[in-house]
Structures are given as structure tokens and as C-alpha cells.
């Protein structure tokens, strides 16, 4: 590969060109600054928001919701997925209902949730938990169900108890599938966090900051918020990649 191709292929070139085009367009009056903030204004806002602490407060509040929803929904999804995958009766009893539920779009739960749980933190966290629950449960179930029968025979030969078989054979064998569910959950949780901030009562949060920017016609605040949301998503993904590579290091990567 030539040097030029290497530089072009690095993935940084196109975004940089866009940034330059954006800046030049503002400078030459090609974009209306009332609906298009300049890159400098976004950077200045970022600095100001960082200094007075409002950016970190908003980010902290959003991350707290995200993590609580992930933990709650992830735990329920994992336990239920493993339960349905290993206990036949439970599978027959609950799977048809749960498979039906997954067709109800996530955001249609919002009216019910606000009636049951109010418009504040509990409702938001429950909403995020719901977004996380389904992919975790479905992928755990899938993974647990598709454990190789030959491994279960080895477990019987080694006289492992049911619990030992679950912990030492079934769950590790399902780990790649569970990881897929958790990766999806990470994306859904962040999506649901921002959605919850838009749709439930206003409280500190990075999604709320964007809404505020829109109401005050501060485009630089809107763009800053979007940038931070994207950055956090990217960071989550990177951490998830690392963790997955470590946990699944036994897999053949060829």
C-alpha cells in the first residue's frame, strides 16, 4: 500500500476535510450562523461548560442512569435467559410471551412507565433497563440452548452437579453469545438514556442539555451534546472490545 493510500485509509482524512469545509463555509457566510454554530463556538462552549462544571454534572447524571439501567436490565436478562435456556418448563411457560413482547417497540412503553413509575429517575432507569433486558435475555437464551451436547456428556462423566454444569460448562460455552447480547445492550442503554431524558421529566443529563440548547437556539450547545454522546458511545465500544477480547481469549480467532 502506498503512503498516500495509507493516509487516506486511516479514517481521519474525511472527517478532517468535513471539519475544514464546515469552518470555511461559516467564515464565508455560506451557512446561516443562527442554525449552524461555528467550530470555534462549539469549542468555546465546551470549555465554558467544562469550567463551570455543568458538562460534567450532565454527563455524570446520564452515565449514572445508563449504568444503573445496564446493571438492572442486564442482571434480569442474564438470569431469565439462563433460566429459560436450561429449565424446560420455564421455557414453555414464558418464552411465547417474551417472544411476543420483543415486537412491541421500546418507545411505546413510555406512557405505561410514566403512569406506573412517574416521570423521574425510577421511570428513566426502568426504561433503560427494559431496553437492555431484551437483547441480553434473548442472546443468553440462544447461547445456553446451543451448548454442544458432547460437552454435557463430559460434565456427566465428571459427575458435575447441575449448578457446576451451569457455571463451568453451559455459561462459558454461551459466553460468545452473551457477549453479543451485552454489546447490543451497551448501545441500547445509551440510546435509551438519551431517549429517556427527552421524553420523561427534565433533569440534569446530556440529552437534556441538547434539548435546552434547542429551546435557547444555542446550536453550539446542541452540537457539543451530540459530540459528547458520540464520544461516550465510542469509548463504551472500545472498552467492550477490550473486555470481550480478554474474556473470550480462549476462542480461535483465525
Amino acid at each position, binding site marked *: 500500500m502506498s503512503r498516500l493510500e495509507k493516509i487516506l485509509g486511516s479514517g481521519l482524512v474525511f472527517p478532517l476535510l468535513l471539519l475544514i469545509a464546515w469552518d470555511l463555509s461559516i467564515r464565508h457566510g455560506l451557512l446561516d450562523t443562527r442554525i449552524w454554530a461555528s467550530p470555534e463556538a462549539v469549542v468555546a462552549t465546551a470549555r465554558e461548560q467544562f469550567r463551570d462544571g455543568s458538562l460534567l454534572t450532565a454527563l455524570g447524571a446520564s452515565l449514572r442512569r445508563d449504568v444503573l439501567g445496564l446493571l438492572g436490565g442486564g442482571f434480569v436478562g442474564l438470569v431469565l435467559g439462563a433460566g429459560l435456556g436450561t429449565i424446560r418448563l420455564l421455557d414453555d411457560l414464558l418464552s411465547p410471551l417474551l417472544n411476543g413482547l420483543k415486537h412491541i417497540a421500546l418507545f411505546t412503553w413510555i406512557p405505561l412507565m410514566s403512569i406506573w413509575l412517574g416521570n423521574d429517575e425510577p421511570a428513566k432507569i426502568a426504561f433503560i433497563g427494559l431496553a437492555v433486558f431484551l437483547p441480553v435475555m434473548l442472546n443468553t437464551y440462544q447461547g445456553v440452548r446451543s451448548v454442544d451436547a458432547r*460437552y454435557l456428556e463430559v460434565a*456427566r462423566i465428571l459427575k458435575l452437579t447441575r449448578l457446576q454444569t451451569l457455571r463451568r460448562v453451559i455459561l*462459558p460455552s454461551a459466553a460468545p453469545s452473551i457477549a453479543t447480547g451485552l454489546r447490543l445492550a451497551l448501545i441500547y442503554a445509551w440510546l435509551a438514556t438519551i431517549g429517556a431524558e427527552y421524553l420523561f421529566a427534565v433533569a440534569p443529563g446530556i440529552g437534556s442539555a441538547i434539548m435546552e440548547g434547542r429551546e435557547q437556539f444555542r446550536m453550539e450547545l446542541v452540537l457539543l451534546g451530540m459530540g459528547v454522546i458520540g464520544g461516550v458511545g465510542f469509548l463504551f465500544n472500545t472498552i467492550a472490545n477490550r473486555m470481550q477480547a480478554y474474556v473470550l481469549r*480462549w476462542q*480461535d480467532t483465525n
Partner: protein
Amino acid sequence: MTELGTLDIRHINKRFQVAGDAFAAIDDLSLTVEPGEFLSLLGPSGCGKSTLLRLISGLDSDYGGEILLGSKRISGTSLARGLIFQEHRLFPWLTVEENIALALENSQLSVEEKRASIAGHISLVGLNGFEKAFPRQLSGGMAQRAAIARGLVNRPALLLLDEPFGALDALTRAHMQEELQHIWQAEGITMVLVTHDVDEALYLGDRVVVMAPRPGRIRKTVDVDLPRPRDRTDVAFSRLKAEVLLSLGETG
């Protein structure tokens, strides 16, 4: 080690349902294996030899007749009866050491004794230096050795081997047969080996039981009264081989 006992297989019948029809995998088979004996079960595919091994292991308990070990009827699997499969069946998410340790999960040994036993069995099968390797990092022969260590670590009275070297190349196979013989001589375990390799059956077995298919039954039992280690090019070995091959070729 668990006290050895005679393995007594009495009038075994095993049927499978194939496309609605009952198919006799094993028909009225009786066989006795003495403590410390090395028995080879030889036959073409479909003669029920692997099925018989699964019945002895306790993985499958749906059969007619009875199987006794030390005059006690076997029920379910037991740590006193180890089973080695044709594929190594190591758990890919555990290292060699962890795979062997899992066999000791329910053992009464102390942590220290377990560690010593695991290390000892890794040496026994010549896998020193590969304790922390994952199965995917091992060659076929090495993985099968780790599986043998896992089968031995509980010190079973009876070790069942289901074509354990079938997937290995000829050179590795010959080497593994020698090692298995060493282990058998050192540990005094009763071994039952299922194979379709005549050389392997004669090289290792005190007796070779030749089975016939449809329905699975014993055609002939050949005593191998040759000193160990055996020489595959020896005249007496060749004579026995001819005898076994002849009985394998018979029909009806």
C-alpha cells in the same frame, strides 16, 4: 484408587429406533473383564462397540440385561469409570490445567493434594510446559494426551477408551499407544479400548474381542499371549493378526 472389581456384562440388548423401526445395535452380548486386564473391542463401524462402551460408562441406561462392576449393578456415570472419547472434548475455555482440575471438582482431596495430582498427571502424559495453554493451541496428539490426563486424574478403577487415537496420524498414534501401555502398566487400571485398528487392538490388548455388526455381537475372542512391549513385525504377532483379520472378514 477405587477397589477393582470384575466387569461383568450379562445378556445386553440395545435397540435404537431408526425411522420408526427398531434396530438391534447389540444383541444378547455377554462379556467378563478381569481387574487390571486390557481388553480390546475390535469391529467394523456399526457393530455396537461404541454403544457398548457408552452403556458401561453409564451415559446411556436404556438397555436390556445387566452390567455389574465388582458385583454391583452400575447406574449412571461414576468417577470410578472414566471415559475417553475419539475427539478430545476438552473445554476450549479452560486451560490444560483447568480442564484436568475440573475432573477433581468433586473430589475429597485437599487443595494441595489436587494441585500435586494435576501436576503429576500432566507429567505422566508429557505435557509439562503446556499447563496454561488453551486447547486450540495444542496439536491433536497433545490435546488427546490432556484428555487422557483428565480421564486418569480421578484414578478410576476402569478406563473406557472410545477410539481415542482414531483421529491422529500414524506416527503419533504409535507413540500414544506406547504411552498408554506404560500408564496401564504403572497404574494397574482395567482398560477397555474400542478400536477398528487390528494392529492397535493386538498391540495393547490382553484379549481382543472381535465383534460383528447387524446385530452387534461377539464373533470371536482372541487371547494375545505375547510379551510386552510387543513387536508388530514378530511372526507370532502376524499370525494373530491373520487370525483376527480372517474372523473380521467372515460374514453371517
